[in-house]
């Protein structure tokens, strides 16, 4: 089966000011993939995500989404592409002055012409999807960290996006919640065919959900591993990837 390309990254160089973090990256994320971006702390994973979502301009290169150049797009083109993206931020990034329902309704009001009743229905549905049915009128400060993340996910899913980005979804979650979130990610991927891009260093999640991945390395500023994480573990391309995937516990023979 030939997979359709969803995101194509071409000769991408990421950095801040004079400081180059990652250089000349090339990779492709296919439709309906669960794609993992992994790498050591500080290698630039979050920065990569910021470039992929248009929050940070790359120093060089392009991000192409569905055949359209996202990096060099005009404001209007960019808006159209953005509508296809859902993002779950590390902290959930819920608007603290709004209830969960208002948070999730916001993108719906922004991009759709649904009536108030339809929006309310959709909000309840999305909240139920992430296991937060009945929490419509709660404020973000009144729920736990894990619940915030799930509420953030409900908001990210509000517009049925084609691509959902996750920044360290399991950080700060207990093992069970983290496992449930993994399951939720897979469910969304299976049922809606959503392309999923996850930044994480949680090994259990990487092997549980990922079917393609890149390993970023801060020292060489490049991609050191590219492929299915399970395959990478079986045939590690180099010592760094092997160490990462085995937590550096075993030496590679």
């Amino acid at each position, binding site marked *: 089966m030939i997979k359709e390309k969803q995101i194509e990254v071409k000769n991408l160089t990421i950095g801040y000011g004079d400081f180059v973090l990652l250089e000349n990256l090339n990779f492709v994320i296919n439709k309906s993939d669960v794609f993992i971006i992994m790498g050591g702390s500080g290698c630039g994973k979050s920065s990569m995500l*910021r470039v992929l*979502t*248009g*929050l940070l301009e790359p120093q060089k290169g392009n991000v192409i989404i569905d055949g359209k150049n996202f990096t060099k797009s005009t404001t209007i083109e960019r*808006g159209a592409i*953005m*509508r296809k*993206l859902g*993002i779950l*931020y*590390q*902290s959930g*990034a*819920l*608007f*603290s*002055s709004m209830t969960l329902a208002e948070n999730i309704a*916001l*993108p719906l009001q*922004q*991009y759709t012409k649904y009536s108030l009743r339809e929006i309310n229905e959709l909000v309840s549905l999305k909240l139920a999807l992430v296991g937060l049915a009945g929490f419509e009128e709660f404020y973000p400060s009144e729920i736990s960290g894990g619940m915030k993340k799930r509420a953030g996910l409900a*908001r990210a899913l509000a517009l049925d996006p084609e691509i959902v980005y996750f920044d360290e979804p399991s950080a700060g979650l207990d093992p069970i919640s983290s496992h449930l979130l993994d399951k939720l990610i897979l469910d969304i991927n299976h049922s809606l065919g959503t392309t999923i891009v996850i930044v994480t260093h949680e090994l259990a999640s990487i092997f549980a959900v990922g079917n393609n991945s890149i390993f970023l390395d801060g020292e060489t500023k490049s991609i050191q591993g590219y492929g299915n994480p399970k395959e990478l573990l079986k045939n590690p391309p180099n010592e760094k990837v092997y160490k990462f995937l085995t937590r550096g516990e075993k030496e590679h023979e």
Partner: protein
Amino acid sequence: MKYKVEKNILHLELSGNYLEYADDKTITSLYLAIQDKAVKVIEISAAGLQKWDSTLVVILFSLEKLARDRHIQIKDNQLPLNLKQLLELAFSVNRNPVLKVPKQQGLLEKIGDWGINIVQGSSKGFYFLYESFCSFGRLLKGSAVMRPVDFLFSLEDCGYKAIPIVSLISFMVGLILAFVGAVQLKVFGAEIYVASLVTIGMTRIMGAIMTGVIIAGRTGASYAATIGTMQVNEEIDALKTMGISVSDFLVLPRMSALILTMPLLTMWSDFMGMIGGAFVGITMLDIPFQRYFELSIEAINLSNFLVGIFHGFVFGFVIAICGCYYGVNCGRNADSVGLATTKAVVAAIVWMIVMTGIITILCEVLGI
């Protein structure tokens, strides 16, 4: 810590407690002993060693390093295992600082950087201003993404909730104006003019300035802190990626609320200042109430009054822009929220003074 030198062997004996050990004399003489004498071997015995902490590790580390440099053999196998492991760790870590080379800049380069910063900063500021105006345009066309709730909330916060403090300060300022004025006017026997002094002073400028300073400290700071915290929590990122204009959603409700309330607060401040003046005039200068009231009314001049209100309007705009600008450009940690708040208040006050200057010159030119 005891040591003795026998031929070319230095025996070091560790015994007892070494918690926060600090016996500089012994340690210095120990180092000297290693350097001066023809010591070839150091033998460390630790039979009586009881409790110790990192200070001992540091002492032994510097000792061993010195010894290694001088090619002295060290016999430390009597040390407890965990202490030895810590020592090994101390040797194995790379002590070269990571990257961060402080940039050496020449004077010319510094001036250049300074210039570039100013240009970049002001172009960023102007762009922010431009976007805010665009948002206003969209508001008038009815296509701005603004929640009425946010607007009403801001209105409440910078409106009637600010009245008590504005009243108090304005009353005091009126009082002070009258008092200081009276002392001078008394010399000429012209106390009666206190009423017009206070009225003109308050309506033309003091009402607006005092309200501006209070609101900059109260509301401007809170805008910067609120929006800055949203930046820290990635809420601004979320807004941007949702394709919602930050200036519509966050700046517009706050700015319109301030622009609406500032002229009203200024009027109220004028009034309270005049009451403060009357208090001094009636109680201290024995001007009858009726007379003072008449004199005040006489001194009110429509153009002065309107210029004061216009100041209030401009200050509202300045405070909102400064508060929101520093909030949106806040860094991503808690520290930077504090910094953003400070900058917002300072910038608001500076710009208010600058605007006052500009308006005063304009009035002069226009003959108002």
